[in-house]
């Protein structure tokens, strides 16, 4: 268990990242530079997910094998999504 202070900091970061994602779309930046900005938005989501999993689900305190279970699921999703989408490109 981390301290309440840590949890609060992470909460602040999560809110900030979400706002940034929104601002990208709201300001029209996304429309002008679709590819790169999309990448940035998705990377922000991945970072947010890692923060929630790492501290709120305290995966950093668990044995590494717990992380592998989640990663196995994520890898499966990537295989399916990338494989299926690439197959029709």
């Amino acid at each position, binding site marked *: *268990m981390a301290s*309440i202070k840590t*949890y*609060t900091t992470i*909460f602040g970061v*999560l*809110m900030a990242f*979400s*706002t940034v*994602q*929104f601002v*990208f*779309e*709201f300001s029209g930046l*996304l429309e002008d530079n*679709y590819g790169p900005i*999309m990448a940035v*938005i*998705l990377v*922000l*989501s991945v970072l*947010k*997910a890692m923060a*929630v*999993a790492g501290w*709120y*689900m305290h995966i950093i305190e*668990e*044995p*590494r*094998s*717990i992380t592998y*279970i*989640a990663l*196995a*699921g*994520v890898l*499966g*999703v990537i*295989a*399916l*999504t990338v*494989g*299926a*989408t*690439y*197959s*029709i*490109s």
Partner: protein
Amino acid sequence: MTESADSHHLPPKSTVKRWLVTTDHKDIGVLYILTSIFTLVLAGTLALLIRAQMWTSGGLILNGLGYNQVVSAHGLLMVFWFLSPFAFGLANYFVPLQIGADDLAFPRLNALSYWVYLFSIVLFGVSFFQGATFSGGWTMYAPLNVPTVDASSVTQIGGFAAILALTMFVTSVTLGSVNFLTTIYRQRAKGLRMRDIPLFSISILLTVWMMLFAFAALLAALVILSAEHLIGTVYFASDSGGSVLWTHLWWFFGHPEVYIVFFPALGLLGEIVQTFSGRRLVGRKWFVIALALVAIQSFIVWMHHMFLTTINLPIKTVFMVTTIGISLPFDLMVFALIYTMVKGRIRWKTPFLFALGALVIFIIGGITGVFLGAILLDYSFRGTYWVTAHFHYAMASAAVAIIGGIYYWFPKITGKMYNEFLGKAHFVAAFVGFNMLYFPMFVVWETPRRVFVYDTGLTLWHRVATLGAAIFAASFLLMFYNLVKSMYSDRDVTDSPWAYTGSMEWAVSSPPPEENFPGTPSYASGSLEFLDRSATDGGAVADGDAATDGGAVADATTAAAQPADHASWWPFLIGFSTLLTGIGLSGISGPYFVWPFLFTLPVFIAYLGIKGAQHDGFALIHGAYLTASFPLLALLLVLFDADHGFMTGLGEASNYFYITIVGTVLGAMTLIGMGYESFNVPEPKLAEQWPFGEVESTKLGMWTFIGSDIILFGALIGSYVFARFNFGWHEWWEAAEVHKATWPGLANTYILLASSFTIVLALVYAKRQDKRKTLGFLSLTFVGASVFMLNKSIEWIELFWHEGWTFNTDLMASTYYLTTGMHAAHVLVGMLIMLFLIARTYTGAYMGEEESQTIEYFGLYWHFVDIVWLFLFPVFYIL
């Protein structure tokens, strides 16, 4: 406590009640075996109908629709409801005995898996009587499987019932996977490392890993398919890649499924060949590594089922390579089995004969499979009897091996030896019948699959196959007679009636005692010992002297520990409620679909109050729940009135509507009943638990469940990405004629993140035993979730009613509503659980380091739901 202390003891086996309430893994194993054999008979009868139809070209007894139903139901029942459950009957019985566990980690969940499985068969059976059952083949290719394409068909209701039955089955499998994984990782005897567990248990471990992920992908496909039926989404009906999307989802599940079916058989082959050759498996380490490689690789070969669809040449090449790659580990395993026989002391007992037969059949199935790996040959074999013959050689090889397993362990389960002569006779008849049935299919391979019109020059071979089918089927009568008769014979067996056995199940009596072992099993000294239970329960490691081989010390006082519970009615009742819900949903009309679930909410809340008061003593919170349920019900009635008109709505509702309500209400009540039941399952005090030593069983169970849920949501998001990419990524929203709801999306992101924060704080204060603050933050989380749902409703109502963007408007609407809707359903489930937690916290539960774990487990679920949203937000609201 309203239930008497001894209500959790098992009634004797002669009573019906015993088999309805039992949570003992051995009982449930037997139930699985018997039920799957029933399915074998049912699906086998359908196979005989197929072969009868093929007696002459043009068919003998069935019309086109009838034949399609028989073919589809045969495939579905055999692959799903027979093969895996047959193996898992043995797994239920023997995995705990092989690894030294007293039971599975979650015995009630195990019973629930079984009852949902059983009632899913009942639902499938019902589907035959609803006009017609599913008739689109076991691969359920889209868009033949969606109602809008086949609108006039009589298979509407029955076909959907079969799909719902499969969905129930997937639920059962997922619960079972979580259970087996937790058990094998957490409850092994001391000294038994992961690599040390017997081959059958290893094969089951890898099987459940594949099940966990593969069946989640199938669940995603079935959720979408159900949505097409219930609310009219247009994923698969769409001309924009819907049909190809289905093949991707289906085969992403479907190829691992092949190994899911076959792995337990491989494990059994290892055990049986080892025992009856009297020689340890040659190259065991490599055998296990090969198994693990196949399990992983099985998730990247699926497109070899799609070589003739629109997939491009580079991806075909990649999948040809992975496919050939996956055949090689099987070569190694087959050779390992063969070389184990060399220099063995081979006894030609019935189990060995079946193992040998399975090996021969599998070699033929494997070689003919390599043909299919060559894309060019695959093009011509596609949709022909070559495929049918090949996969029957592979799949039935699994069945034959498991039948060998039944003979192998029959003496252990019953304590009686079967009749050897009848066993051998069964093998000969089965082997001859099998090859007569399937080998001619290679000869007549040009016959199109699932077609009963064929070149009349092939008639003779088709008739040989039909005769073979009759012989194959009849051979099973010998087995049934033999086993039933032998159960009542006087041929008692010792602990190990076979020579050269090795694993733990042969070191206990036949049949094994209710508590499985005469003492706590341990391999710490290098070989198996049963340690004095009272010593090990106390936490101290007993020394070698305490070991016994007969159980003399087993009765030593264990009064210190509360005995484990073995009986509960709830799994049976919950299973039954899923049957009712399934029957109801199969025929419910779209506009009514959501109402049974909504009407269940006030019942859930009221019953939570009642049960809580019974269990914890009446408190203010229970009164509040009861009171709140009435205005909620009133509100729902008003909404229902607005939607359908109260009296006309109820009057026009079909019986299916009412059956659904009964099912969902019963489901809510029984789930609460199970939630409030005290059911003691002691965690093992002395066990090998690498690599999850510091993780409690329930937490590991929760994480494995989350692993499968990642695939469920990932497959839904993947479907969206596929559909959008296929449509044209940038044109997507322009074509949708509505604007992205970015503002509400942002608001909900804030709300959900905040609720994650508050649930963490609730856990912090529960650990500090601060009840007031725990309750406060739990309630705040609930409020957050409510605001999220409210915001979501406004967003939906705006799009759905005001902009007229309904589920079936276009692909954009379908993907948007279904994916965010599945997420909302997860939020709603979380809210219901929170109501339970709040009531329990109010009456003093969950305070302290240990007790607060329940809140932690719920938090894991809640954070996961949050993470899903973190991806839905950019994907559906920004990009």
